């Protein structure tokens, strides 16, 4: 196995274009969280003042936030199910200029098309990786919409250091590893059902 492949935000088109489904990478640089509520709010009212998102990664995550000595500390920050954002993501990527989506479980064809059109990627992080992801995200840098949305749905900003491992499961060339696996498991299912 060769060394870790690290990509950095803001992502440029050359890097994005070089990423193919099945590649494993680690991501460093600025990244912000958004779940469905934050997506909807930003699509309605626009980005909050001071939040720069061009070329960054949007992370589908609702962290655990603990108050410690009057400060907010993130204690666990793994990914949430990305499919919930499927109807919102194409427009959000277009509006925000974010060029990587990080989450779990993969997304649908609307997002896959948007990734191809805009030059962006979907990166899968292992579900449930709360403790490990929290370590790699480091201390939180900014928070937006905390009052409006509460700590789980708010937009948290981090400077990640080698967040990962991340699997490129949807690339900017129209390929989806989720579709590829689903085709294989679909055939396996037909075979198993035949044998019942």
């Amino acid at each position, binding site marked *: 196995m060769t060394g870790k492949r690290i990509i950095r935000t803001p992502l440029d088109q050359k890097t994005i274009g070089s990423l193919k489904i099945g590649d494993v990478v680690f991501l460093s640089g600025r990244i912000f969280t958004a779940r469905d509520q934050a997506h909807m709010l930003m699509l309605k009212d626009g980005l909050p003042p001071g939040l720069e998102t061009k070329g960054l990664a949007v992370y589908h995550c609702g962290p655990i936030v603990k108050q410690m000595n009057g400060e907010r500390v993130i204690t666990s920050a793994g990914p949430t199910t990305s499919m919930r954002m499927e109807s919102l993501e194409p427009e959000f990527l277009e509006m925000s200029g974010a060029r990587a989506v990080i989450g779990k479980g993969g997304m649908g064809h609307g997002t896959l098309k948007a990734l191809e059109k805009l030059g962006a990627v979907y990166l899968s992080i292992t579900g449930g*990786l709360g403790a490990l992801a929290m370590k790699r995200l480091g201390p939180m840098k900014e928070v937006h919409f905390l009052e409006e949305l509460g700590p789980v749905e708010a937009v948290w900003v981090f400077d990640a250091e080698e967040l990962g491992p991340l699997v490129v499961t949807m690339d900017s060339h129209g390929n989806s590893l989720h579709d590829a696996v689903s085709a294989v498991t679909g055939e396996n299912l037909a075979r*198993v059902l035949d044998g019942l």
Partner: protein
Amino acid sequence: MNLAEILGRALGEAVIAMPDDLEQALRKARENETGELARMHLKAILDNIELARTDRVPVCEDTGIQTVFLDAGRDFPLLGELLAAIPEAVEKATKTGPLRPNTVDPFTGMNHGDNLGPGAPAINLTIVEGDGAAIHLLPKGGGSEQLSALWMLTPADGIKGLKREVLSHVQKAGGRPCPPVIIGLGIGGSADTCMKLAKRSLLRQLGSRNPDPNAAALEEELLESVNSLGVGPMGMGGKTTALAVNVEFAPRHPATFPVGLAMQCWCHRHVTIKLDRNGKAVP
């Protein structure tokens, strides 16, 4: 320690330290996998479990909806106190940190902030023999719960129909419930009974079999066929889609064939506290 303190501490521990049988099953799965991505996910999962235990932080940020199975002895004198202590413990564990506030009003979408509300925490009370109590805490994540299911099959569909539905469902779910999963199946009873049996079956030791030979045979067959689908860890292909299939059953009405499926992610958090008649924790 009072009852709320005992329960609060156990709840905190449940979301930080994973059960031994789960960790062993995940290690075994990792040894068994040959694919690079499957092995990578299982390594990340095992590293994460270790880090959470060392750093004393929740393994997964979704600490779930608080689900409680309470088996109270008919002569347990502190039932009222215990029923009051459960929400108190949940509220405190939410305010002080280990639990994420997860209960949201279904109409307004507003987060309650304390994981409380009508039916939350969900307490399933069973009265059993004796004068003590056993409290099983199951903080159940939303990503896997979203893939739970109920089928009201016909008796003609029967067990074969059940297999067809379960296998199709697991294939379609892919990586969304965070496989390798634990699948709880409740068969028979009514719609609500089979769902409750399915969820309760998740509390069983991994690798245990239902004492009934028909149920045990179904568990083994389904585990093998689910894993032959090739969904694999996080749905990226592999031999381990499920770590266990647990079947529980009840008599059914002759006109119905209810099947409930409780989907549980690899992050299978649960803990049991046993109390004596004085409310003291006992092994």
